[in-house]
């Protein structure tokens, strides 16, 4: 499969059983572009698709004599991220210079945090966070020519608009055990960062970028195998596919008795191929040393408090609260917590006077409401939380049957309004007992054959009788009640 072109070392004599089971060990490195007003070390505003090289100044162009100055808002956002991920902020973190030559790096070094990051040792969901640190983004290279890469390009141009954009790098511990888990966790991270309001977290546009360190080991082994690094998988799907492809490649190598060599790989989502990444990522000695142009980041108690108080309730916490306090199912709680707009709508509905049971409301929100609005935010549709609460209450009271209520729901989303008035106007109120009894009796006559079958023990035949009742009542009847009435008359 995808391992052509990869250099393999000579296979040692194999004593591994061919069908041995392997366990993937995955760690993620995530780069988040911060949505600060200005760049990490200068006063240029961040760029959103402006003409190339219009958001630059002597500092972010690396002109001789210029000096960086740390962006206080980036530190604030970084602290918020650190705290949201349960990390301990360092009392004093420092910037280093990471030295390498590349045209997208105007100073010949990237300013990044190294041995003392802004924050470390946290957790999000079931994955531990190793560290959270601040750095600056590189500029963007555009290559003319068929290769699309710098090697073999006819010409290359540099757009420095992106250069110096503040980045937070989040590094997890190698706690992830499958590609699917990696993608799911990254979704949790993204919704968490979005909730913080510190980044656009858009994978297509590169404001959220994910690299994965992948190794495998025989199941039961505790030492780590040799890892490879998969670069820049720019969607959840590509992350999952890339990691799966790499796990399969490594398993293939090991089953053949070959050795995984440490390298950086590029995943091509079109072909599914993994190829070694050349250029600046070749084995490097970055010669890190403390950046003498900057003073350490030493957050004051006021800065820490400001970051702490800026933290909203985070999706993971919200899911726990919805599950624990309101008794929602885990999946429902997660869906409401991860889709912030949906969660907000749900909580507003529950808070309505005389609202029905939270679980019933939750089921209607994640069921019928989502079926009607898709991925849209309910706040952008016509339905009000109070209307939904009212409708669910009416169903609970038996004032409207479930199937009719679905029709009311569709009307609420499309047109808004009061559920009781909609029921009234469309004649969707639950059929009264006498009326229903008459309709059931008539249906049993009409479906005499089916009635005989039911009597003979064919339970499924009850559907034909119910179908008639529902047709006659236009869905205004409660299914359970209809069944009861049929059985009563058998």
């Amino acid at each position: 499969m995808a391992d052509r072109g990869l250099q393999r070392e000579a296979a040692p004599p194999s004593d591994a059983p061919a069908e041995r089971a392997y366990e993937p060990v995955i760690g993620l490195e995530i780069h988040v572009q911060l949505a600060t007003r200005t760049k990490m070390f200068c006063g240029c505003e961040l760029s959103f698709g402006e003409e190339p090289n219009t958001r630059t100044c002597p500092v972010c162009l690396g002109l001789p004599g210029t000096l960086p100055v740390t962006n206080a808002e980036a530190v604030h956002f970084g602290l918020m991220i650190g705290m949201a991920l349960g990390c301990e902020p360092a009392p004093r973190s420092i910037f280093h210079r990471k030295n390498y030559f590349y045209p997208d790096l105007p100073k010949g070094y990237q300013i990044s945090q190294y041995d003392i990051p802004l924050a470390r040792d946290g957790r999000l969901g079931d994955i531990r966070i190793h560290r959270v640190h601040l750095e600056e983004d590189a500029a963007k290279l555009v290559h003319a020519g068929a290769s699309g890469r710098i090697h073999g390009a006819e010409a290359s141009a540099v757009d420095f608009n992106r250069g110096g954009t503040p980045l937070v790098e989040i590094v997890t511990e190698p706690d992830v055990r499958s590609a699917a888990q990696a993608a799911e966790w990254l979704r949790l991270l993204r919704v968490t960062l979005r909730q913080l309001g510190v980044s656009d977290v858009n994978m297509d546009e590169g404001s959220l970028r994910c690299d994965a360190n992948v190794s495998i080991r025989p199941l039961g082994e505790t030492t780590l195998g040799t890892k490879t690094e998969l670069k820049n998988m720019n969607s959840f799907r590509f992350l999952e596919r890339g990691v799966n492809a790499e796990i399969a490649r490594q398993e293939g190598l090991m089953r053949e008795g070959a050795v995984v060599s440490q390298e950086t790989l590029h995943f091509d989502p079109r072909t599914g191929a993994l190829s070694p990444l050349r250029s600046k990522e070749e084995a490097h000695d970055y010669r890190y040393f403390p950046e003498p142009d900057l003073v350490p980041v030493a957050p004051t108690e006021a800065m820490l408090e400001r970051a702490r108080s800026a933290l909203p309730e985070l999706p993971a916490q919200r899911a726990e609260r919805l599950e624990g306090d309101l008794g929602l199912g885990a999946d429902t709680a997660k869906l409401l917590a991860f889709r912030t707009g949906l969660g907000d709508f749900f909580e507003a509905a529950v808070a309505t006077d005389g609202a029905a049971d939270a679980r019933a409301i939750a089921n209607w929100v994640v069921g019928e409401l989502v079926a009607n609005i898709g991925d849209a935010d309910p706040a952008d549709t016509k339905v009000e939380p109070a209307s939904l609460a009212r409708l669910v209450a009416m169903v609970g009271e038996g004032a409207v049957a479930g199937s009719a209520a679905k029709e009311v729901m569709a009307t609420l989303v499309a047109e808004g309004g009061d559920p009781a008035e909609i029921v009234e106007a469309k004649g969707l109120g639950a059929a009264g007992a006498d009326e229903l009894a008459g309709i059931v009796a008539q249906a049993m006559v009409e479906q005499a054959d089916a009635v005989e079958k039911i009597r003979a023990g064919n339970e499924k035949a009850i559907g034909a009788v119910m179908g008639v009742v529902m047709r006659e009542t236009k869905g205004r009847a409660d299914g359970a009640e209809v069944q009861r009435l049929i059985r009563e008359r058998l």
Partner: protein
Amino acid sequence: MSGDLIDLTAAQAGERVRAGELSASELFEAWRERAAADSLNAYRWVADAPPPETDAGAPLAGVPLAIKDLFCTEGVPSAAGSRILEGYRPPYTATAVERLAAAGAPMLGKTNMDEFAMGSSNENSGFGPVKNPWDESRVPGGSSGGSAAAVAAGLAPWAIGTDTGGSIRQPAALCGIVGLKPTYGAVSRYGMIAFASSLDQAGPLTRDVTDCALLFRHMVGRDPLDSTSTGLPDEVLLPAAERLDGLRFGVPPELTRGGVDPGVGAVFEQSLRLIEELGGTLEEVSLPHSDQAISAYYVIAPAEASANLARFDGVRYGLRAEAGDLGSMYEQTREQGFGDEVKRRIMLGTYALSSGYYDAYYGRAQRVRTKIAEDFRSAFERVDLIVTPTSPTVAFGLGERTDDPLAMYLSDFCTVPMPLAGIPAISIPGGFGEHDLPVGIQLAGPAFSENRILEAAHALEGAIGFDGSPARG
């Protein structure tokens, strides 16, 4: 007319402008003519006209300023002595230069220097060495050699330079003028083309201590564009002291004995006697780690330089070699653009930071640096100032040390410890040593003690009575 003007110190000329006895443009033109007639290779660029408006009431009253080519000046060539930046005109001006211009010191010209401030003789300039006005077969010192020679030769009323390991004080000493290296952080580094960021500091080169204080007063200040700048806690005062009563002077044997030429030693001894005559007391203080200062300096400064100079890669500005691919373009640009000493230091610094060597070199050098700072701290618990020769020798001959980098590095052994500790030091002319060439006396004090240093230097200067001018052609 111009002869009279040239004999005035900058402060005196400024007084005349303020008194209405002299126009700022007349003053500028007189100095511009002098600078344009430079035969020492002290200047790289001279203004061709006075600036459009000069406020005679400004504190520096329009007295023009020579500026080391390390400072970026908007639209004006700023090459830092390097071929790799030949013709480069920055789009902005260094903070220190801007402040001085705002205080009324317009730019007279840009002065020659050792390439990227790496050198002690000015022979490392990409544009030819500067000659010492006292003896044109000798070096002016470095790296601010152009600024020092221009002031000494009457080609500029005053100048600014930068000091990393002695680059203001040593050329000031070799040219018989005053040079101050301020406390690290007192003056903004923004717009100074970086050599070694944790050591570089801008300061004045002037004819006398009063000019030095006046110019320094308008350079200092915290700059939001330089995170490491602090400014000074107190205003810089114009010194008036004529006595040294009650001041304790420390004499460190490590920086005053071995390696100091006899003629320099004699001038130094004479200065110590003058200090006592003026009421100061002398005390021996030890700076035990000084002998390791040069070694530490030649690890730390090249390490920082190796990163600071990485930006000269041919991609955006300066020289670009035509080459087939990116790697060759980098290599050939830097091969052609940098001189030997710069390459040597980039290699030294790259090596010192390499994986596996970092702790043995850079890490150890930083620990030595800490020890040196501690040496000074404990010395300043006992004394107010430390006095040493500035340079162990007088100006040496052009070409004399170019084949022996280590001998050249040792030129700085009296001046290197102070920037490693971040503390201020001044060099003032103390008299004449070998070959009747000027000898500098260095006074160092604790961080932010510039006023104390300037007062003491002023008193000592008065007692020395240095007749400070080579024949001015």
